[in-house]
């Protein structure tokens, strides 16, 4: 499925839109990390919690759970809620 990548993670993917697969959001992030090593830990901590300011949208709906199921036709968007100076 298509995954839209926020600009702070372009150093990993080099592209705004990449392909990845997984039956859940967690599996999708694991696949992204296989393709782009190091990416997952920048957005998910070692306790499997989403890092502050990172947002995950599936078909334009924000999700908060890595077990959220995904289908191949879903659109996934990673967003960094930028704040501060």
């Amino acid at each position, binding site marked *: 499925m298509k995954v839209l990548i926020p600009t*702070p*993670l372009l150093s990993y993917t080099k592209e705004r839109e990449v392909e990845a697969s997984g039956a859940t959001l967690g599996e999708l992030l694991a696949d992204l990390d296989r393709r782009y*090593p*190091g990416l997952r*830990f*920048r*957005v*998910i*901590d*070692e*306790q*499997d*919690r989403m*890092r*502050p*300011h*990172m947002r995950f949208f599936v078909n334009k709906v924000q999700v908060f759970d890595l077990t959220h199921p995904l289908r191949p036709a879903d659109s996934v968007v990673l967003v*960094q*809620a*930028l*704040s*501060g100076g």
Partner: protein
Amino acid sequence: MARTSKKSPARKQKSAVRSKPAPRRVVVLVATRKGAWLFHGDRQRKTWRADGPHFLGQIIQHLVLDPRDGRTLLAAAKTGHLGPTIFRSTDFGKTWKESGKPPAFAKVPEGEKGRAVDHTFWLTPCHADEPRAWYAGTSPQGLFRSDDGGDTWEPFSIINDDPKFREWMGSVQDGTPDGPKLHSIIVDPRDPAHLYFAMSGGGIHETRDRGKTWTALVKGMEVVEGFDPANIAFHDPHCVQMCPKNPDRLYQQNHCGIYRIDRPSNEWIRIGRNMPKQVGDVGFPMVLHPRDADTAWVFPMDGQTVWPRTSPEGKPAAYVTRNGGKSWQRLDAGLPKSQAWWTVKRQAMSADARNPVGLYLGTTSGELWMSRDEGKRWSCLARHLPEIYAVEAAEVG
């Protein structure tokens, strides 16, 4: 007349000068809130070339050269929004590669609240006999080790999960405003199994068996009035350093004073009591002379009332002791005379090993200052950098 091969006195002198090895070049490694810079000095430390920014926009807490190979750099990084990582360079900053497994706490079972590393704060190369090995201290407090040049990191010893240490670490509420930190990881050059580290807060700890057992080393250290000094959690060492000349002597800049300890004694002596009363002995950094165990520098800050943590009265100055802390002299020539309200953080002051010793300091307002003569005279090396978190003087060539 046949020419004589005997050299004239002048030529002899010239030959002697020629045979003396050229001094090594100093490179000042500057870590800031928005990237890292390398300032390459000439052999006289008079002209400097800025190389940077590296990692523009990333928060770099510490940038350290591996003295064992003279070319490997490690940078502790995160952004305001992305998680923490370590970048490595094996060609002195020409190229960088991200750590394959940055420091991270062990995952706790489902339902328990585990800790997550917010940022790696401190990097220390291990002993000379352990090439490619490094220690890292994190915020919140954690101790990690890499044995592959900083590529993969594992928790070191029991520190991160031991109930007693966790109690001493306190909560985020007990730590510094940008998170409680494990710092000042010190390796005894005589014995790789003999280590110290410090925590803000959480005291100073020592092992002589490579982390199998630890002893708290806080006797003589004071705590904020009203707190119990017997409780390790209340001790807040800001920066601890071991004398290169005498590894049995350590100095410490603490939240509550400046101290010295001479092992095997287990008791710190508050040498900051000898500082001028109007300046006090609160500060962050502690810098030691490479060849004289009686000489140390501090950079005091205002720790009165609401703790402005600026230069006292807006007049920045380093202070030096040449007698192990019995007396202190003010070193402010060249520094602003008034209205300079910056701070020098605990990692942001450093010394080279040249003679006379060069001192380097970075300010919270993004200025890099240096002294070529052990603090007698200061000059500004760079302005308009982001807030400076760490300054390390490395020698190469």
